[in-house]
């Protein structure tokens, strides 16, 4: 499979999902004179579907999916997992604790740097950015247990 064929197929499928969602959500299509909330999404889904099919049709000469170079996927997965942890924990553990854990994990575990350096950088980043945004710029950041 080539990259264009995979991507084009995914786009066409997404267009069908949009149409199905309009139908399932009972969004009125309206009339030409008074278009409803589903009118423009379905129009766009049609354009997306047509584009997806054309990309598939002309996608024979594109590189194979495997040749796109995915060697960094383990690293990327670790970063995505860390971000997901931040999204889950930031309002439970507080900004500073969450960032210390996330940065400590990325630098110390994923990047395999010296634990002391990882801890220092993580604590510095968390407290520094908290001071800059929360204290100086008054952008309220979440606090967790013990006010951290």
């Amino acid at each position, binding site marked *: 499979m080539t990259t*264009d064929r*995979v*991507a*084009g197929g995914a*786009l066409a499928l*997404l267009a069908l999902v*949009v149409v199905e*969602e309009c139908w399932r*959500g009972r*969004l*009125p299509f309206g*009339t*030409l*004179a*008074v*278009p*409803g*909330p*589903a*009118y*423009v*999404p379905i129009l*766009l889904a049609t*354009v*997306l579907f047509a*584009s*997806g099919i*054309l*990309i598939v049709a*002309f996608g024979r000469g594109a*590189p194979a*999916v495997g040749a*796109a*170079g*995915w*060697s*960094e996927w*383990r*690293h*990327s997965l670790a*970063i*995505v997992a860390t*971000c997901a942890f*931040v*999204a889950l924990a*930031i*309002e439970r553990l507080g900004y500073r604790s969450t960032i210390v854990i*996330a*940065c400590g994990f*990325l*630098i110390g575990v994923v*990047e395999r*740097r010296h634990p002391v350096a990882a801890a220092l*950088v993580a604590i510095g*980043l968390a407290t520094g*950015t908290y001071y800059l*945004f929360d204290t100086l*710029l*008054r*952008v309220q950041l979440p606090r967790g247990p013990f006010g951290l």
Partner: protein
Amino acid sequence: MLETLSNLGLGFSVALSPPILMYAFVGCLVGTLVGVLPGVGPLAGISLLLPATFGLDATRAIVMLAGIYYGAMYGGSTTSILMRIPGEAASVMTCIDGYAMARKGRAGAALAIAAVGSYIAGTASVVGLMLLAPPLADFALRFGPPEHLALLLLGLLVLAYMSSGSMLKSLAMAAFGLLLGMVGIDQMSGYFRFAYGVVELGDGLGVVPVAVGLFGVAEILATAGQPTAPKVIKPRLRELLPSRQEWRESIAPIGRGTVLGFLVGILPGSAHIISSFVSYAVEKRVSRHPEQFGHGAVAGVAGPESANNAATSGAMVPMLALGVPSGPIPAVMLAAMMVHGVSPGPLLIQQQPALFWGFIASMYVGNVVLLVLNLPLVGLFVNILRVPYPYLYPAILVFSILGVYAVNGSVVDVWIMLLMGVLGWVLRKLDFETAPIVLGVVLAPLIELSMRQSLAMSDGSYMIFLTRPIAVVLLAVGAVLVLMNLYTFLGRRLDWRARLAMAEKGEEAP
């Protein structure tokens, strides 16, 4: 003309007040840092730092964000010249001859030429912005919903045409971005669309999480695992002054780059990248020694650097005068202005002259600040480049999360950023451009509103778009672009866009 000068006087009275001057300085400094860091371009930089401006009034916030914008364009040249890594995409062409000059021991001269060229181009193009934006805004007052829709569609078509990849793929990405922009409550009927029960999605997908995800996080995902640590050439301060010969060789390219960059900047598309590419090609064509290009030609630095900075001001013209962003960076600037209660468009100049002219004047001041900042502090910026990437990217990631979370104080935005980051990474692997997605998200509500209003006006007849002269001309230009692309595609020709794509990937054209 007298009126323009008196307005500019008003602008300088705003821009030279100490607080505005300070925010211009901070914006330029932060922007330069953002531009220097590989992977954090002006788009991600503005998005990340938008929450930091929430406590400021509109003028200060916009002056600071504009400073970040052109500061990042300046800063991008430093990594290009010293490391052969473009700090942002527009500096790709500077890498070639800038790095070659650095290897010959002329790093300081290359940096000075880039800084002076950027200063001249930045200042001259602000004159163009000042003269062109008010009459364009007057003209735009004649626009009704059909003309507005035609203009927005033309913007998307030009962006797709100008992109270095396939126009079809770019159009598909624009349609995808427009669909993402449909998420949330429908403005006209109040229906919830594609929100899957998530209340926070009622206001739609924010531009900031989408832009930071697609550009900032995707870049980190793509580069964090790569073996890095490229060599940084450190220039000596006493070598910063170019020789008389180098000055002579740079004057004409700076002039050509300025005019070309400004004109390309007005057009929708990735103006900075295109302007620097076109400028490089022009300089090589007109040079008496084209064989020097690639081996440290002064014109190969002066032209593209001037062009990409002139394009910054050019891109402001349609945004300020028409309220239509010409690319993803002006789109985020537009969103930032809206956050601060400013609606760019034809009425901005009339209703908020102090803000508009203060902004214009601050750009003159900002260019001086950048020139003063860039050369003496180059040593400091070089030291930042020496921070190992395993320490640098977690910091960028923290700023990304912080910037996105702080906009609405919502974790949902962090999830959107993460999803967009993964999507952006995958799309890059599949050779799809992500800039049209951001533009689509910004333009979606405007396009939908104009379309539904136009159809209501015409009682459901699409002929309304073909009976109003301005709309017809705009749509005809769009159709010509599609036909031009078809002509290239069917003839299997290698046009300038294909060569630009190859240059961005570091490949040689056959």
